[in-house]
């Protein structure tokens, strides 16, 4: 979609991906409506909605993408171009617990490397990998705004700061 907003017009053809669009509970639909209500232009809700679809389906799978395209009357390719730009939007499955270790300078000089290494050994996966049981994905990510409490990681949306190997064991242990 090219840049000037005034050019955006609703899509006229229904998209056919050869899959059925995802469906969601009335509750989730209501949540989606609340987001759409915030903006004068539907497309603005694309990121909030992607997070919801991701929460409900694990990642943006084709039915999810199709749902978003229909809901926002965009082309599936418009969903794709946006989804692939943002590092928090997953277009492929991730583990139930996504461990994101901050690797940027302040954390790095405060021992982020050790934390990654520790998780790696503990879970038996390298950064970027997911455990066989699909429970844990380990990633190294850029600055999460916790530089003063380094080293740290985020598991899904939860911050865990001032980490030490012991603390890591505790946290991972506490995850059902």
């Amino acid at each position, binding site marked *: *979609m*090219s*840049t*000037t907003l005034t*050019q955006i*017009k*609703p899509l*006229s*053809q229904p*998209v056919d*991906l*050869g899959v059925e669009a995802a469906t969601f509970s009335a509750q989730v639909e209501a949540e989606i409506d609340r987001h759409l209500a915030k903006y004068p232009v539907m497309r603005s809700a694309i990121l909030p909605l992607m997070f919801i679809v991701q929460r409900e389906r694990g990642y943006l799978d*084709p039915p999810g*993408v199709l749902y978003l395209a229909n809901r926002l009357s965009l*082309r*599936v*390719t*418009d*969903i*794709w*171009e946006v989804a*692939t*730009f*943002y*590092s928090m939007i997953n277009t492929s499955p991730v583990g139930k617990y996504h461990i994101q270790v901050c690797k940027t300078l302040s954390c790095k000089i405060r021992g982020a490397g050790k934390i990654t290494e520790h998780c790696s050994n503990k879970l038996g996966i390298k950064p970027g990998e997911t455990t066989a049981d699909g429970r844990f994905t380990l990633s190294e990510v850029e600055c999460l705004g916790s530089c003063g409490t380094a080293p740290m990681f985020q598991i899904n949306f939860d911050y865990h700061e001032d980490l030490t190997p012991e603390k890591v064991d505790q946290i991972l242990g506490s995850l059902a």
Partner: protein
Amino acid sequence: MSTELINITINGKPFEVPKNSRLIDVCRDKGFDIPSFCYYSDLALQASCRMCLVRIEKMPKLQTSCTITCTDGMVVTTQSEEIEKAQRGMTEFLLANHPLDCPVCDRGGECELQEMTFEWGGLEERFTEQKNYAAERYLSPMVANDPQRCILCKRCTRVCDEWMGEDAIEAGGRGAHTVIGTYLGWLDCSQCGNCIEVCPTGTLLDATYRHQTRPWELAQTISTCNFCSDGCQMSLGSRGGVLMRVVARDRYVNGINGEFLCVKGRFAHPFVNHEDRIKTPLIRYKKGGKLIPATWDDAIKHVAQNLDVVADKYGRDAVGIVGSPRLTNEALYTLQKFATELVGTENYGTTDAYSLKPFFDNLTGQLATHKDIRYAGTILLIGGEPEELQPLTGRQIRQAVRNGGAKLIIVNAVPIRLREQASLFVHIAPGSEDAVALALSGEGDDELAGKKAGISTQQLDAIRQALNSAQGDVVVAFGGELSDDAQALMAQLPARFAADGRRILLHPLPLFNNSVGAYDMGMDNRRPVDMLNSIGETVHALYVAGSFLPEHLHGHEETLEKLEFLVVQELFESETTKYADVVLPVASYAEVDGTFTNNDGFVQRVRQSISPLNQAKPDWVITAQLAQELGVDFGFNLSSSAVFREIGEKVKAYNGMRYPLLKDEQHPIQAKHALAGSSDTSGQLSRLRESVEQLSEPGDKINKTPEVGHELFKIGNLTDKVPQFHLLAGGNPRPDTTRISPLYQITVDANMERETMVAGD
């Protein structure tokens, strides 16, 4: 853009330029070369390649000349050490991850990045790291993609959105991982291939032409498309008697369409060298027998004799003569001359879907050129579906709205895609186009019209208001849905609505490359259906150059059998040749010299790219030889320019035209169609009113927007010969069918559902 002139200085030289003109254009216009990749005239600004850097006094850092509009007193430097270093730097960056194996790239020799690199020279290889890798793939049967070669100028995504309104291809990913592509890698679009055309590198490539020849091995011939009535200019690339590819790249051709072509113009050309071409004259010695190859002499003699026989037996009118609106003006003129001067029959006409006679006979205003459409202030489109049937007109309308802020009013029974751009969409009941024409042309017919079209009288008022209040050019375009009388009234709109500061320009939307020419050449006499109906009655022999359209022939097949003699000039066997007593092989548009006249009224050159295949001959040559055989020398002695010279003398609208005058495709010449002047339309009006009254009450409206390509992809007699079109016939193939190369895909399933030839193919 204002015409106020301002002073600027470029590299120390003073210039006067229009205020607010774009610096990069000005510099180039004044002869200062400025490199660029992402800048593309009339597309949204991108300013991402950072090649077009210049130094402007009083401004910090170098500036991108593509984003700067000229202001008075501006002092610009386009060449300096600083600028050259920056531009070399950008080129070096672009080359960093770009494969350096130009010899294996289809774009080699036509690549802007390659040329830029040569120009700079001495870009010593400082990049010694591993290049990012991405696999080649096919995005569709037409479009191949080598992501590694992409420099992300995004011309492709912009033409797809801004020209085509399809928005099928986008940039995905981020940073160094940005790729041009689509969701699931499948290009769901009309397959126009314009993304391929505008691609400066070998990233998007013609999948039907991969690894076939090197561009420099191709002979380039500038010619005119032989599909729709827009008349796009194209460059036919041939080698060794084979038409290898069709492009509109501005390095070869600069016509009304710029680098734009549609899927047919660009990809349907393989019919030319198809093995099913009729190779020799064929004679069916007795009805129901087989067609047997014959020599030209025998064939011509045979035809001449039989036409004579019929004429002697039943009189001259018993010989009917029919020409296809696909033929050149030269061919159609010769046919008309043959019919009127030699045979002297009343029964001659074209196979066109509808007649332009009522329109041209009542014309009260100029035809709108495609440029007029792009810069029009208001556009009224009644019926039609240009984005599928006249794609260039479709693009012009879209850009007029998006880049020119034009007001678009669409009156249609179908919510066509273009209505996304419309400021007013009047959704009428199917088949009620005439009602709207009536309301616009008559007085006090709004009640009736509104009722029959299933719309409010306010909507009709709004349309009239828009026309009456419009400033600048108003373009009225309309499709073939309108009846003869309605078209006659359309032709009278300029007389009704034109005013000071408001021109009303007309843009008919006929379906064929030479529909307009067929009228101009005087072939538009009897309608194909009338002709078919009079078979057995008045008509007993038919001489058909081309074939009848299926929708006309449908139900008349057996009447063709009733003919005592049928001779057909064709490229391929068709429904019509089935019943022919003689079939004569003709040369395709790529094999002949001549002219087509488009819906702008532009008379544009068709040029021979390859010599006629097998024993094929140009239509007009055959007709002339037939005349010879019948004892009349047309005096063309085998030169199409001689035919056109006679057209220039005999056809009023073409007075004084000669091939040399049509040489430059950048400055096409418009036929001077006679203006009828405001005439009494009461006759047409009352007839139209009656027929509108006859219209049944509006039922349900059509609410589904047709799929992209629903017309473009239909299989016709020509596209039938192109395997890729069969893949598209059922709509764009699904993603899973495109993982492998089209070279595999195009093993065509014989019993695949096929739609028969439609008008517009």
